[in-house]
């Protein structure tokens, strides 16, 4: 028979380190059903029959936080064979508070005092034997970090679990409380089969715990009867029942702890000294800025970008140079060749257009790959001669001739498919659908892993709590946590790791709000699109890019304030009473494990949705009806595609936003695969009839152009980010709520921009302006209405 042992303890008590040390790599990580709280279980290294369940870190078994509810439901309903209560030796007083509640559950308990190495280093003394005698529970000294006492405590827990002798608490409350508890037990708990949990239930009923009242299915009659007992006790003790119980527990701990703990005379600990500098009134913000800059610089600007480029353009692209040897030489050679080739092509173009060869200087087009912007440069005939000679003499450089070239996965697959004479449709499906889809999933992982190392480090060293401490004042106004700063910062680079970074936010509502709003910030992939709109529609105006960022920040603030007041985020106000744990140096293995767990959960949970939707969009883009026959299309036949048909069907949605044509609609849909695709799609569609930028300028007015930009910046992010949202919400309803809200909000903002913008761009006051103004009024109402769900 297997034995199940639950690990319970406060946050920051070293429970995760202990769990990792006990189970090694035999772990299963998931979520508790339907909630974002992490579930972890593993087999004990020393005995595979022993399953260890790591409960979320909690301070109490109150009914107010998800973590606490999940934990206590598990302990009561699933009844593990034994509980190992991990307590932090450097902070016994508060840690024992949870212990006083755990021993009431009637399940065998053993206590492990963790971090004994730190306790000894501080010169403090804990009398474990005395403590054990006082609480009536076996107590073991541990150091999860130093592998001390681990086997002993598991053996003890297994033994206790096999004996199955129910734990009963030694502690008794004040006489009048005990009196009320006895009454409650007698009145409504006599029919509970397991009499060992009766005390737990009676205390919860005394605290007026609504979740327990519901669970026991008490009639209002009985509740009213209990209320009498509680009220008379409250009157006698001059306090409310919850305060009485909490106070009594802490008083009890106070009495036992004096006899068991000897603290060395207390000077400043290292942690205190660090904190004095790090959250110093004047230095805190500069230090914060430096830390955030470092995180951003490494995980977004430098290493992160290399990692993403390597994964997307290398492994899932043409290929890459091993250790980047030869990359620079190849780039130089390729640039030189391209520059010459452009002049030669320009010359040929001139001949084609004019029918004669140029007699003097001639202009030739140079296209920017990212933004599809075309500039004209002038070449002399001498330039042409030189360029023609160069192109004649040199072949187009092949990356394989420089350094060690490793072709990308698609190259290999394409070669393999060609070798077996694969059908074009299947080849397209595999290369452009499946491989590109897998690439879209895995392409983000390297960068994400870099970021996760930082997050794991910041979390486990204790700085993350200080981030919340420093930024709380600003972010809480918008229903966000101080820790939301990091997801949003990372979101300027890429929304996918940005959303994944929201995992560090403990509070459920703050986290959901952060997930919903992070992608409003323009990410790196939206930049080419912003540049394209600025260049094509606004003649390269410098204000467009900053405006896009302001729009993002505006969207976060407005959404935060509005959503905070909706029923969606209603409920008990979230208390922000946060422990600032002592600083300590994290272990490498824990940081790496946390990094890997998060990265893997993205691949596993977000992968499917990203892959499927990429394939669907690919299919719709490259298949359609030409001359009455359903066939696979070339890239420039996109106007025959299923996607174009879909765009024509959906375009009416965008008529009020000023861009109700299929071209803009299709571009927006392809943007869901990756936002930079908007540029590519527009270039194909508008490029069919001449200059891309000129055609695009003709298709939009200033107002509709900015509305188009605004909509695409704010609407649902790319599939990869949607996958991340789904992963982090871990709930289908919340996932669709987030996507729906983002699209709806984007539409309303687009409407306002277009309809009100028209007034200012000389189109005057129209019927639609009324709707624009009405939309503004709705937003203002949403911002300033009274909050009926929260105080």
């Amino acid at each position: 028979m297997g034995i199940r042992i639950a690990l319970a303890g406060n946050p920051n008590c070293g429970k995760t380190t202990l769990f990792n040390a006990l189970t090694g790599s035999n772990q299963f990580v998931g979520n508790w059903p339907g909630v974002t709280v992490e579930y972890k279980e593993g087999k004990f290294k020393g005995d595979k029959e022993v399953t260890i369940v790591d409960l979320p870190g909690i301070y109490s078994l109150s009914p107010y936080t998800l973590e606490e509810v999940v934990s206590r439901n598990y302990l009561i309903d699933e009844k593990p064979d034994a509980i190992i209560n991990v307590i932090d030796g450097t902070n016994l007083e508060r840690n024992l508070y949870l212990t006083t509640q755990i021993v009431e559950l009637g399940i065998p308990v053993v206590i492990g005092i963790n971090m004994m190495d730190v306790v000894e280093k501080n010169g403090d003394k804990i009398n474990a034997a005395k403590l054990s005698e006082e609480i009536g529970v076996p107590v073991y000294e541990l150091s999860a970090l130093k592998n001390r006492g681990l086997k002993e405590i598991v053996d003890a827990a297994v033994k206790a679990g096999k004996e199955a002798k129910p734990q009963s608490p030694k502690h008794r409350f004040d006489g009048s409380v005990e009196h009320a508890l006895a009454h409650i037990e007698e009145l409504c708990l006599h029919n509970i089969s397991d009499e060992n949990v009766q005390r737990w239930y009676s205390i919860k009923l005394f605290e007026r715990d609504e979740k327990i009242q519901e669970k026991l299915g008490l009639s209002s009659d009985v509740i009213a009867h209990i209320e009498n007992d509680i009220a008379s006790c409250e009157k006698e003790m001059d306090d409310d029942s919850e305060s009485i119980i909490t106070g009594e527990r802490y008083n009890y701990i106070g009495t036992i702890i004096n006899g068991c703990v000897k603290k060395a005379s207390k000077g400043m600990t290292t942690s205190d000294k660090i904190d004095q500098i790090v959250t110093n009134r004047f230095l805190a913000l500069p230090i914060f800025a430096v830390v955030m800059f470092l995180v951003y610089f490494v995980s977004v600007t430098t290493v992160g970008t290399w990692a993403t480029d390597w994964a997307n353009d290398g492994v899932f692209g043409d290929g890459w140079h091993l250790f980047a040897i030869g990359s620079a030489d190849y780039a130089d050679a390729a640039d030189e060749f391209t520059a010459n080739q452009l002049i030669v092509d320009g010359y040929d173009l001139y001949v084609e257009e004019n029918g004669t060869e140029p007699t003097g200087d001639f202009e030739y087009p140079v296209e920017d790959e990212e933004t599809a912007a075309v500039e004209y440069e002038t070449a002399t005939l001498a330039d042409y001669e030189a360029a023609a000679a160069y192109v004649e003499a040199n072949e187009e450089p092949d990356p394989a001739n420089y350094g060690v070239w490793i072709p990308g996965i698609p190259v290999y697959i394409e070669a393999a498919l060609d070798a077996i004479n694969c059908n074009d449709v299947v080849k397209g499906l595999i290369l452009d659908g499946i491989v590109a889809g897998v690439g879209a999933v895995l392409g983000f992982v390297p960068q994400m892993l870099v970021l996760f190392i930082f997050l794991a480090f910041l979390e486990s060293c204790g700085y993350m709590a200080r981030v919340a401490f420093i930024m709380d004042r600003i972010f809480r106004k918008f229903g966000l946590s101080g820790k939301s700063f990091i997801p949003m910062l990372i979101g300027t680079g890429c929304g996918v790791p940005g959303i994944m970074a929201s995992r560090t936010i403990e509070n459920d509502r703050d986290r959901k709000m952060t997930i919903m709003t992070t992608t409003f910030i323009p990410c790196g992939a939206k930049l080419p699109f912003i540049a394209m709109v600025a260049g094509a529609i606004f003649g390269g105006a410098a204000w467009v890019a900053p405006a896009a960022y302001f729009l993002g920040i505006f969207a976060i603030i407005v959404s935060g304030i509005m959503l905070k007041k909706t029923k969606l985020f209603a409920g008990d106000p979230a208390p922000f009473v946060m422990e600032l744990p002592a600083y300590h140096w994290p272990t490498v293995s824990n940081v790496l494990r946390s990094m890997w767990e998060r990265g893997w959960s993205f691949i596993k949970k977000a992968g499917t949705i990203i892959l499927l939707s990429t394939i669907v969009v690919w299919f719709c883009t490259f298949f359609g009806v030409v001359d009455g026959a359903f066939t696979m299309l070339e890239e420039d036949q996109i106007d025959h595609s299923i996607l174009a048909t879909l765009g024509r069907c959906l375009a009416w949605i965008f008529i009020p936003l000023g861009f109700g044509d299929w071209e803009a609609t299709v571009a927006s849909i392809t943007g869901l695969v990756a936002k930079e695709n908007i540029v590519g799609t527009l270039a194909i569609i508008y490029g069919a009839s001449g200059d891309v930028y000129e055609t695009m300028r003709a298709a939009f007015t200033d107002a509709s152009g900015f509305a188009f930009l605004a909509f695409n910046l704010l609407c649902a992010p790319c599939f990869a980010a949607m996958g991340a949202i789904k992963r982090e919400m871990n709930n289908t309803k919340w996932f669709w709520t987030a996507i729906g809200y983002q699209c709806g909000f984007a539409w309303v903002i687009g409407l306002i921009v277009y309809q009100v913008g028209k007034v200012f761009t000389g189109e005057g006051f129209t019927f639609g302006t009324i709707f624009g103004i009405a939309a503004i009024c709705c937003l203002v109402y949403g911002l300033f209405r009274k909050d009926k769900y929260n105080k």
Partner: protein
Amino acid sequence: MKTLRDVSVGETVTVAKLTGEGAVKRRIMDMGITKGVEIYVRKIAPLGDPVEITVRGYELSVRKADAEMILLKED
């Protein structure tokens, strides 16, 4: 009555009673701020809120709005 909000940095005070109700109050109590406990106010966050206090031997961050619920003993 004086509340924790009114205390300046560096002072040590004793809790007399907690006002308010529900989740916030329970959470504050669960973290060890109960009747009779001593609180040392360590510092205020650089932006003026929240405050960092020492209670029962560890550090806790409390928003000023919540600190108002903590009534103190007058000496």
